[in-house]
């Protein structure tokens, strides 16, 4: 316990990075995932196939490999960025495919009459997507997206193995200095993750009840 109090500064700094990493990659992944989901619904063959291909590739690749490719591959291409940016990109590119899948199943639960009614009211495709389909799809997909975000929060731990000194990397560092107290450090950092995930779950629950609509 004393060790946890003594190393509170390091652990807090780690969680600050974890949180920043989560927020940055979540925003990017939500935008990219929505774009992918819309692309996979449009009546343009090549965009649908592109979105489906991207999702198939990402869903069958370990996230560690995505980290590996970006962190060590980008410098080879002359793209020298910070480890934090690499990690954000890796997490966002990976999680976007899962968010796309969640949104797509959200779209699939919309009754076909909705789009037929919108069309018969004379809406064009973009208005229909914006005012009728997307709001319902998002509302349907919120629980699944909440699960995606929790997975994303847990996946940020990997950044610790790729140069970002976030909470999990702090476990590594602090253990080297205090080899006898691994369990205390593990318990402290694990409870930090539990709090983070509970907060995300509570937030998503809040959003879900906000967006609930009567059918």
């Amino acid at each position, binding site marked *: 316990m004393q060790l946890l109090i003594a190393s509170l500064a390091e652990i807090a700094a780690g969680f600050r990075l974890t949180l920043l990493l989560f927020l940055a990659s979540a925003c990017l992944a939500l935008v990219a995932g929505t774009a992918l989901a819309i692309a996979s*619904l*449009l*009546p*343009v*063959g*090549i*965009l*649908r196939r*592109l979105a489906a291909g991207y999702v*198939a*590739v990402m*869903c*069958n*690749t*370990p*996230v*560690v*490999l995505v980290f*590996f*490719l970006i962190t*060590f*591959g980008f410098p*080879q*291409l*002359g793209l020298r960025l910070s480890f934090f940016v690499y990690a954000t990109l890796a997490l966002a590119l990976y999680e976007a495919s899962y968010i796309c899948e969640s949104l797509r199943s959200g*779209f*699939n639960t*919309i009754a*076909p009459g909705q*789009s037929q009614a919108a*069309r018969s009211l004379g809406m064009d*495709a973009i208005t*229909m*997507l914006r005012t009728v*389909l997307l709001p319902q799809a998002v509302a349907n997909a919120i629980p699944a997206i909440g699960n995606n975000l*929790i997975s994303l929060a*847990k*996946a*940020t*731990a*990997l950044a*610790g*193995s790729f140069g970002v000194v976030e*909470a*999990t990397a702090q*476990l*590594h560092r602090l*253990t080297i200095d205090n*080899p006898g107290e*691994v*369990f205390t450090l*593990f318990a402290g*950092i*694990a409870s930090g*993750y*539990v709090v983070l*995930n*509970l907060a995300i779950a509570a937030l998503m629950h809040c959003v879900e009840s906000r967006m609930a609509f009567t059918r």
Partner: protein
Amino acid sequence: MTASPFFDAPTPRTGKFLRGLDIVCGCGLVLLLGLGIHALAQTGQLRGELWAPFLEPALWRLIGRGFAATLRALIACTLLSFVAGLLLAALGSAGPRWLRTPLRLWVELFRAIPSLLILLFVFFTYAEAFNRIGVTLANGLGDTAAMVLGLDQLQTLGPLIVALTLYHGALCAEIIRAGLNAIPRGQMQAARALGMTSSQAVRLILLPQALHHMRPALLAEAVRIAKATALGYAIGYQELLRTGQIISTAFHNVIAVSLVMMLIYGCLCGALSWLASSLARTTPGGRLGSAS
């Protein structure tokens, strides 16, 4: 081009427009691909000497060893996670009452912690113990068995199996619990009316049905476990990705190696995903447990 469920069949004019859009997007894609290949060529990533190592049989033997190590971890973790999930779900819903809350807490806890954190903790704490077990077992079982089981790497394989079982066992427990909850209550009531105890009813009536219906979800979990074995990279377990990293340090060909690794993982996970989705198609949908 298949019809999208949200759009009417296009009028001739819209059809022409959509075809045009298709061609424009196609051209854009080709342009983008060309730019990508140009960028690779510009930075020298397509040079022959970076790809030539993949023509050597010796390199593929190394990759094969890595793949075997990944498979070893995958099989052990999948089996153990399924067993752990089964136990957690069955005892959590039909075990002694005092055990149910702790088991739920256990599942919720391990679902909320990153598997890498669990892995590092187990590795830091038990690597030595696993190493000793590996040496003892290797002496007892002989060289062939030690090689097949990967006992020489038990120092890292052991923590990987334990950590992934703790994490994915909790996830499997949730899948099986969802399967149990989806079975109509009449099944339990009928079993109790026939004089079965509730644990008998769960074991003989509910679990077989739940497992049958959750086969696709459990296989999807196996795909996630296959991807998670790459976490062994972080503790130096020489599985596929670690092997790739060793190759890329030797030949300075990170991008080439990553692409080959993506292909191998894609085949492995793709085969498992395909099995899961074909099972999902053949598993009857609709109400569980209803006569069909």
